[in-house]
Each structure stands twice: as structure tokens, then as C-alpha cells.
């Protein structure tokens, strides 16, 4: 084999290698490698979700403004009626979990002694017991529990209102502190059961618990109210 032409071939090939290296280098500098591609995909999905949510909220704002105008008009006619409607609205918003509420109740800290001890159904059980004992508002890690709230395992986390959380889980509950505590700590009750799974439940009574409102958007795409029949 001719030595000179061999060297020329190596030179030519290493030139192509050089071009590839430089192109790849520029590309990595521009985009930032494969991890940031993944990150970008993740963020794109988030942006799409948020954009959709934003549109829904805008729509909701328009609807509310429309309703305010209607109420204002009727308020000019009958101030009494407006007051009643206002009260009713406030009541409904409280029930739906759309307002921050405060009052006496419990702060419950649920933590695990071994990893992955807390499963979603443990949290559901606690919520269930609290509701049965007359809790008026519940939030886990500042996520208000409303009618559509899901509590489910998602990988190593538990999703509450589509936001992933990991232990400890802090419940904020408004209601009769005495009753609520008894409902949880009765012999053979939830706290007993959870302690066998290496889950510790710490219950504190508080005179003033702040339960935040539901932060997401509630939308009804399929359900429509049925007008009451006479």
C-alpha cells in the first residue's frame, strides 16, 4: 500500500471527523445536550397544560364578570335580593373550596419511618375519617381537598390535585378539634392501623387553622345543570 496515499486518506477522514466534531460541539452548545432536550420536552408539556388552564380561567373570569354585571343590575332594583345572592354565593364558594377559610381544628403531620411506607390509600383513609367526623375543610400540604381532588400514587410521589408530593404530609383540618382527634385516635382506628405500617401520625390541636383555597381551575365540560322541575 502506498504510504503517501494512506496518509492522505487518514487526513481526509480526520477532516470529516473534525467537521462532525465541530458540528456536534456547536449543536451541544446551542441546545445544551440531551438532558436539556428532555427538560425542554417536559417544560413544553407543562406550558401547554398551563396555557390550556389559563384559557379556562380567562373564560371563567368572563363568565364571572358577566354574572357580576347581572347581579349589579338587579341590585339596583332590589338591594335585598343582591344581599341574599351574595351570601349564597359566598356559602357556595366556601363549600366548593374556592375561598381560604380559617377556624379551630387540627394540624396533623403524617410521616414515615421507612421509605415508601405511605401509600395513597393511607391518606385517603385519613381524609375519609376526618370527613366522617365532621371536618369542614381539609388541606394536605396546602392542597385543598375538594370534590374532584385525586390522591394517587405517581412514581415515588403521591399526586394531590395533580401536584406531586412526598412525605411528610401535613393535614390542616377545620372542625371540632375534640371530635376529629377522637375519630383518628380511637383504639383500632386509623392512627393505630398506620403505626403498624411504620407511619407516624402527630396530631396538634390549633385554635386557628388556615386552610387555603383550591388553586386550580374547576371546569365542567360535560356536566350541565338540570333545571328544577315544578
Amino acid at each position, binding site marked *: 500500500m502506498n504510504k503517501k496515499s*494512506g496518509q492522505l486518506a*487518514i487526513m481526509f477522514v480526520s477532516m*470529516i471527523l*473534525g467537521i462532525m466534531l465541530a458540528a456536534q460541539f456547536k449543536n451541544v452548545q446551542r441546545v445544551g445536550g440531551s438532558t436539556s432536550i428532555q427538560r425542554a420536552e417536559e417544560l413544553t408539556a407543562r406550558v401547554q397544560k398551563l396555557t390550556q388552564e389559563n384559557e379556562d380561567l380567562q373564560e371563567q373570569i368572563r363568565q364571572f364578570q358577566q354574572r357580576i354585571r347581572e347581579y349589579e343590575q338587579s341590585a339596583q332594583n332590589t338591594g335585598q335580593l343582591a344581599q341574599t345572592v351574595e351570601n349564597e354565593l359566598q356559602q357556595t364558594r366556601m363549600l366548593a373550596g374556592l375561598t381560604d377559610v380559617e377556624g379551630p381544628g387540627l394540624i396533623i403531620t403524617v410521616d414515615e419511618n421507612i421509605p415508601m411506607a405511605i401509600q395513597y390509600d393511607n391518606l385517603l383513609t385519613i381524609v375519609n375519617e376526618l370527613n366522617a367526623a365532621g371536618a369542614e375543610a381539609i388541606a394536605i400540604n396546602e392542597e385543598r381537598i375538594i370534590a374532584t381532588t385525586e390522591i394517587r400514587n405517581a412514581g415515588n410521589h403521591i399526586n394531590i390535585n395533580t401536584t406531586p408530593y412526598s412525605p411528610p404530609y401535613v393535614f390542616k383540618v377545620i372542625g371540632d378539634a375534640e371530635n376529629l382527634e377522637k375519630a383518628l385516635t380511637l383504639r383500632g382506628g386509623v392512627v393505630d392501623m398506620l403505626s403498624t405500617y411504620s407511619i407516624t401520625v402527630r396530631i396538634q390541636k390549633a385554635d386557628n387553622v388556615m386552610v387555603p383555597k383550591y388553586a386550580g381551575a374547576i371546569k365542567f365540560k360535560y356536566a350541565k345543570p338540570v333545571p328544577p322541575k315544578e
Partner: protein
Amino acid sequence: MWLPILGLILGLALGYILPVNIPTAYAPYVSIAVLAALDSVFGGVRAWLEKKFDIEVFVSGFFGNAILAAVLAYIGDRLDIPIYLAAIFAFGTRLFQNFAIIRRYILKSISGKDKIED
């Protein structure tokens, strides 16, 4: 001996100046191809030092390995099999082996003593 390095520098400069842009979606496959190409060049240098250099084997290996690695990585991605790991492992191992042999040849030529057996 200096021609490959000269070629590499020339290529780097060309690649940097020319507006060659790889679409983001294909960047992982190009990186595998780059690794395969790098391996081929080291293999070529080694063969040249061993006086066993064959231009056809070298050029076909360079392009063949690069294309095969990229295509396999692509197919692996479609089938959710991380074939690119195999490519990285195979080419990476060979690259270091080739470099070790090249190193010994260079050391030998510098000192003039027989240092092939470490």
C-alpha cells in the same frame, strides 16, 4: 504523522465556520456516529503504526461504523432498546485499547527500546 492532525484541525475549523446545523432530534445519533468515527481514526492510526494499514478497510470502516452506529441507535430508540449503549461500550473500549497500543508504539519510537510488553 502530522497529516491526520492537520486534517483534524482543518476539519474543526471548517465545521466551525460552515453553517452545519444538526436538527435537535438527530443530535443523539450524530453523537454516536462521532464516537464510531473517532474509533475508526484511532484504529487507522494504529494500523498505520503497525504497517498493516489498508486504505479500503480504513475508509469503509470509518463510514460504515459511523452509519451503522447511528442507524442502530435510531432503530433502538424506535424499539425502546438502548442499543446506543452497546455502541458506546464497544467503540469506547476499542478506542482506549487502540490508544494504549499507539502509546506504546510512540514510546518505543522515542526511547528506541522494546516497550511493547508493558
